[in-house]
């Protein structure tokens, strides 16, 4: 049962760490646009298919 003296503070520190990260992410504007990224991730990476402007 003694392991709880180690686990409990660790859990709290980890939790605090993630909350701090969340606060930082929000303040730096990562949640300002919630609509576009949800769709952006669905596009395939297909840079090679795109012709350069010179081909026009």
């Amino acid at each position, binding site marked *: 049962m003694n392991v*709880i003296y180690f686990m*409990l503070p660790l*859990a*709290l520190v980890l*939790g605090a760490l*993630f*909350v701090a990260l*969340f*606060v930082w992410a*929000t*303040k730096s*504007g990562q*949640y*300002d*646009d*919630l*609509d*576009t990224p949800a*769709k*952006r991730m*669905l*596009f395939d990476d*297909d*840079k090679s*298919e*795109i*012709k*350069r*402007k010179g*081909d*026009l």
Partner: protein
Amino acid sequence: MTTEHINTLKCNHCNDEFEARLAVYKDEQVFCCNGCKTVYAILHTRGLDKFYLLRNEEESFTPTPISKERGSFEYMNSHEFHDEFVSLKRDKKQVVFYLEGVHCMACIWLIEKTPNFIPNLLSARLNIAESTATFEFTKDLEVSTLAKELTSLGYYPHPVAPGDNSKTFQQREERSEILRIGIAGAAMGNIMIYAVSNYAGADGVYRETFNWLCLILSLPVVFYSALPFYKTSFQAFKLRTVSIDMPLSLAILAGFVFSTIGLFTGSDHNYFDSITTLIFLILLSRYFVKKATQQGLSNKGLNTFFTNSEVIKVDGEREILTHSRFILPGDLIKFKTDEKIIFDGLLKSSQAVIDNSVITGESRPIALKPMEEVFAGSVNLEDDILVEVLATAENTRLGKIVTSITNSELSKNNIVSRADNIAKYFVWIVTLLTAATFIYQLKFHGLNPAIEKALAIIIISCPCALALATPLAYIRTLNILKSLGIYIKNENILEKINSVTEIFLDKTGTITEGKFEILSFQNLSVYEDEKIHEIVYALEQVSTHPIANSLKKYFKKNEISKRALFTNAISINGLGVSVKDDVNNFFFGKLRSFEQTSSKQSQVGLYDNDQLIAIYTIGDKIKSSTPGLIDKLRNSGKNIHIASGDNAEVVVSVANELNLTKELAHGNLSPEDKAHLISQFHNTLMVGDGINDVLAFKKASVSIAVSGSADLSMRACDIFITNQNLKQIYNLITLAKETHKVVYRNFYFSLFYNSLGVALALFGVITPLMAAIFMPISSLTVLASSFLGTSKMRIIEKTKELK
């Protein structure tokens, strides 16, 4: 989907349905106009065909066909422009554009691909909700080049100045909202771990430590996340009204204070887990409602209302392209054909034909003489005209209407929500029950159990289910509405729709298409139709009469060849056009009264040697979905009025066609008259599209702007419908009624749980553990009830999917 008798095709670019005879072809692809064809060609040669694949996956794609030819954006390379709109980051430049024409996933893809084919463009990021895109580029790229490229893709750019005050404020609000939810969620999750351990039977030092941890973790939730509740309660208290946030705040604070006192005095019972869950769930559900209502109606549009980045200023011999912000009264401005006039001014050209329907609702184009006034918002239909500016931006007639809207917007949001109304009764019931329990327990069990049981009632009774009942029901409805193309600005408007009895419909653009069109063509001669069209087309070349314009447009669309058949055609003022020589003796113009077959529409005819050989009937067509809507609304017991700025006779004839009585057809109304008319009735719904409806929107209980509305109407209305089909208005009314049912069902459920809770509390069986079980169950029931909705809701949702 449109009328049955017209053969329609779908444009390969914009997906719009259009009449088959207007089609433009290229590479076996079909388009509705040359603009769309050009954009297709550009995308195709650059290997960007994937745009169409992505686009087809979007069900709610409602784009505008590309038809406007726009200019060179030279002004964007000027120093003034750079100072204001371009920000420098080390050696990178950055500019933000509001893009007209952004709709969907495919647009994100296309715009963010631009760095691949525009040289020196480093990155492009689009925010789809706001329609703004941020571009980073090196100094070798001129902003005008970027703007031109975007235009060629079909997105018209309007520069957005960085650090717009209202935007940063809104952004701060939104960020703190997310923070509140996130922190409440994190704290709730952690508290749950310890609370559940305690319920499971942790004891001794563990139990005590866990209780203290719960207290510490609940601090940020109670004193930060829950702040909005206290604020609203306090405001409501100051205004001497009741808000749903009051019982909430009471439960939160009472629960927190008594749990803390209990902890210090050695009592084992606390409600930290219940309080934090409550705060988290309610914040979350409110956030979702807000998200569901805001979309599609960002305030960005208005900034571009009087703004045109391509104003042609005439300075002596020179023509200067400039931004509308640099125009002052007294300047001479040239407006091209089909260009929107954005200033109030005096006409300097010898003549002009103006479409004033935006302001007056008059469907016929108006011919103006020199020195007559033109108003911002109208459209120049014919040749280029010169206008001396009298007023710009907010000083124009239109600008004043805009200002009145922006001011009234704040006041209109103060609608008391249903939850607040019901909270009134709940607060009393709960207070009475709490008092009863307290007295009962005090008498039989002593002070401590009395406080405990009374507290249990406050905390587990009304707040959670009650506060969730409305938002959850609304989220579901708002999502269905969104899939139907209906956007709601304020969710509380949903309950107002239920009490509507008087419905006012605008005529031009709402009931009708809002365009002057050839309604019918009657050939009385032996010639072929084509031949007659050709003669008329040739004759009409000399006429600038509004009717001639609509005819010319019609011929152009039908690909009637424009032959110069007559050299000596003359226009007879107000009557028509005639040509008389050795071979021909034609007259084209107004019919003699005995020849008219319809008294309602304008009719013109072609005469060959004084013999009538063809009749054209011209008018504003009624939308195909209008009669269906009116029948349905009437059957559900609503009174339907027509309120129009158009000629009273025309309005009455439209009313006749729709089987409405004459008394309910109001014509000749100025924007102010319309507002006055509506203010004479109660429980009104105004449906319109133009700026002339905006003042009426303000007066009506509920206002709806239909597809194709002016920017300003979209801003002023409560509800905006992007779907072409007017029947959606009926769906909206039905859904509002069904939502009402669901909200009440939710309330009944929460009432049931409350009575059960009260009964248990009275018998003294309630413990924090019971509370911890009770709360989520009551919330889940409400959630399930909201999610199920009603059978009618499911039918509307399904039929939409089938379509």
